[in-house]
Structures are given as C-alpha cells and as structure tokens.
C-alpha cells in the first residue's frame, strides 16, 4: 500500500490548522481509512490535547529521528478510532531538531502501511514549515475570511509553487454565515479572487468547536453540528468525491424559500 502525505499549513498562526488536521483525520478515520497525524509544531505541540491523548505520550518525533525508539513506539493509537494514530511533537526541543530529509524518510516508512499521513505545519515560513512540506504529496492551505490571513496564505502558496509542490488546495475556516450575508465578512468569492486555487473545504464558525477542543473530542465525531458536518464533507472531498459547497447558509427571504420549496 502506498499512502498519501497531506500537509496542512497557513502562514499565519491561529487560523485553525491543528483543528483542521485533527478533524480531517477523524473524518477520514470514520470513513474506514488508516490515518497517521504528525504534529510538526516541535516545541509548541498541542495536537495531542485536541485529540485528548496528551497523557499517553512516551516517545515523540525527535526520539524517532534521533533513534531512541522505533517509529511504532512513538505512534499513539486514538481512543475512539482503532486506525487513527498520532506521532506527537517534542515539547522540549525546537524545529531544528528535525530536517526535511528526516521527515521524508519518516513518511516513506509510514506510507507503506497507512492510507493517509496528515502533517500539521507550524505557523511561519521557517524551518518548521520547510520540514512539514518536504514530504507532502498534497498541500492544503488553511485561511480565515480576513485580509491578513488571506495575505499570508498568498505568501505561502507562492512558496509552495516555488518548491514545485503542485497546486495547493484551500480551506476557508471560520466562515460566519450571518456576517457574510450582512456583507461584513470576506466571502468565498473574495478569497478566491486573490488566491485563485481550488477550494476543498468551507468550515463554518461554530461554538461547538471550542467546546470539543477543550474536551479532547474532535467535532468531526459529531456529524450533526455545522462544523462537524463540514469536516466530514472535507474528508469526502479529499477522497475525491464531488460534494457541493453547502456549508454556508445563504440569505433567503420568504419568497426565495417558497420558490425553493416548489423547485
């Protein structure tokens, strides 16, 4: 089996890279895929917290690279999905403890047994970012519908193009339907106008995400929530299904609703 390595990156911090990575992993896991998440944010790890696995970390990625343990020993199995694993980052080291070559070697090893490797890139354009994109077969750029995040996404997409990593795909996270409909937020079209890359996910803003993050239960397990459904749609699109982008509710007045009812 040859799996696919997908790196999730953004440039700007705080746009939801880790949340997206974890929930995409859960979404793929729920579809029966074997998935390994790698936390690329060495020194500032938090993927383990979002997955609720923080107290199980014995070995981390730096231990694997430096030969203190085997890869399998550092892979932590998820509590809920038997085929979802986490390779945690080291909290006491920094980004320079790992090289892009290490990452490629590691991913080549994992690929032989798993369907997907998801790498959560740290913010920024330095060593950590370079490590994260080196092994990638596909790169997903996460942005928020705000000007500064979109600007940084544009910079990152330029760097990815310079590395000849193929066209990146885009996730717009934290879309607020009410604000979009009021005209107070950048729309999907505004973002696309500047970035001009394929959209693969549209995640609505949802308070439940914060609740689930704090509980260590990724929202993708809860398909009834707005964000949970959006993450499941994202996983389906990553698998190649054509799912329409209906995550953001459009403004409809009464007449529109009646028209829709009658087709």
């Amino acid at each position, binding site marked *: 089996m040859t799996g696919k390595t997908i790196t999730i990156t953004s440039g700007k911090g705080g746009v939801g890279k880790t949340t997206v990575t974890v929930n995409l992993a859960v979404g793929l896991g729920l579809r029966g895929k074997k998935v390994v998440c790698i936390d690329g944010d060495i020194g500032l790890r938090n993927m383990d917290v979002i997955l609720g696995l923080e107290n199980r970390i014995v070995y981390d990625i730096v231990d694997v690279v430096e030969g203190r343990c085997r890869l399998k020993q550092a892979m932590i199995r998820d509590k809920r999905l038997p085929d979802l694993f986490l390779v945690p980052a080291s909290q006491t080291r920094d980004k320079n403890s790992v090289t892009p070559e290490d990452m490629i070697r590691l991913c080549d090893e994992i690929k032989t047994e798993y369907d997907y490797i998801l790498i959560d890139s740290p913010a920024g354009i330095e060593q950590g970012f370079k490590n994260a994109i080196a092994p990638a077969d596909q790169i997903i750029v996460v942005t928020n519908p705000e000007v500064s995040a979109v*600007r*940084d996404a*544009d*910079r990152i*997409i*330029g*760097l990815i*193009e*310079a590395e000849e990593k193929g066209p990146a795909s885009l996730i717009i996270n934290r879309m607020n339907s009410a604000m979009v409909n009021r005209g107070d937020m950048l729309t999907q079209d505004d973002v696309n106008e*500047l970035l*001009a890359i394929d959209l693969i996910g549209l995640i609505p803003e949802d308070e439940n995400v914060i609740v689930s993050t704090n509980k260590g239960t990724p929202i993708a397990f809860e398909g009834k929530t707005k964000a949970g459904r959006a993450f499941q749609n994202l996983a389906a699109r990553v698998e190649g299904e054509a799912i329409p982008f209906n995550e953001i509710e459009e403004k409809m007045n009464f007449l529109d609703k009646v028209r829709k009812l009658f087709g």
Partner: protein
Amino acid sequence: MEKLINQIIVKGTNEGLMMILPEGDWEEVRSAIVERINSQSAFFKGADAFIDVASRNMRATEVADLRDLLGSFEMRMKGLLSFSEITQKNARALGLDTSLPLKRGKRERKLVILSPNEDSAFLIQKNIRSGIRIEKDESIVIIGDVNPGAEIISGGSVFVWGKIKGKITAGANGNEQAIVGALSIEDSQISIGGIMRIFSKKIRNSNFTAPLILKIQDGDIVAENIKS
C-alpha cells in the same frame, strides 16, 4: 536657422539617443539644438545622448558647454563621436565615450537600458504572489495578477494582463519613457523612472475590455485609456 534645426538627425539606439549635428557655425548649431529639444522636451527628458559631430573640431570649453546644455534638459551626455582627433581628445578628457558601446556584447548586456518600444521582454504566465520579487533589466509582461506584497522591478516597461495590487517599478534605471499597463489597478504603489504614485482606489479603463496605460506626463504619472 529654420533649415539648421531640420538638419539635426535624432535616432534611437540601444544605448540611448544619437544626435547627429550639421556643419556650420557652432553658435547657430547650438541654438538649433536648444530649439529642437524644446520642441519635444518630454521625449528628450531623461535620455542618454550620444552626439555625432562628424569632422567638427570642438574646443574643450565647447564640449563642456554642450554637456552642461544637455544636462540642463535633464539629459545625460554619454559620448561625443567625431573623426576629429582634437574633438576626440577633448571628449576623452571630460570622460565622454568617443565611440558607441559594443552592440549587445556579453559584458555589456547588464548595462543595456531598453526603451519601452523595444521588442525584447520577459514573459511570466502566472499570478505573482505575496513575497515574490521579480527584477529584470528588460521589460516584463505578466499574464496573471500581481498580488499585494509582490514586487515587480523592470528597467523597461511592465505590462500586467490582469490586476495590479502589488508594487511596480518601471524604468528602474531612470527611463521616464517606460510605461505600465494593466487591466485594472487596485491598492498599489507604482513608480516610473523614479516618480512614484500611490493608488488607493480601484481604477480601470472606462472601456472595460481595453487595458489602462500609465505613463509620465509633466513630471507626474497619469492614466490613459486605450480605445479598442
């Protein structure tokens, strides 16, 4: 006098303007030069000039005076071409070339300043994203957008078959005849030949299908519609 001004021949070369002066009394030729430049001051402004005086013997003071005269029109006198050994010696003493630079020699290539009318240009077919900087001596043609945070620098002209939202520098070597063309210009900073203008609202050709051309006119960057 009328005849003398028409005897001045002006040619464009790779290195700048070539001005071939007629025979005759120097004072009269000199005032014919002034008249000629004044008739097209925008064209001559900022140009590098090579003067060909054929077999005229020029004194050092006359050569220096000619150089200062051209300088007063914001032209740079780069060379004085003549068969006369006296003229050649006086020109060299003032640091002027006495022959045209080698044509497109490999060593010289970096120094060539292209005028916007020349046909050599660097073509890019993609969006120029934030953080990307493209710097070329020749003109640049981009098929795509120039996004905020991107920088385009050219010794010649810059043409963007898309939107300009980033920073554009045309005529980076001081060529004020360079132009900047685009389908639309949004929040951006554009300079031509050292003159800069900030655009803070979106402008485009009033005829939506044609591009917008920016050029220098009377020391300022102005937008011009092209009719299609």
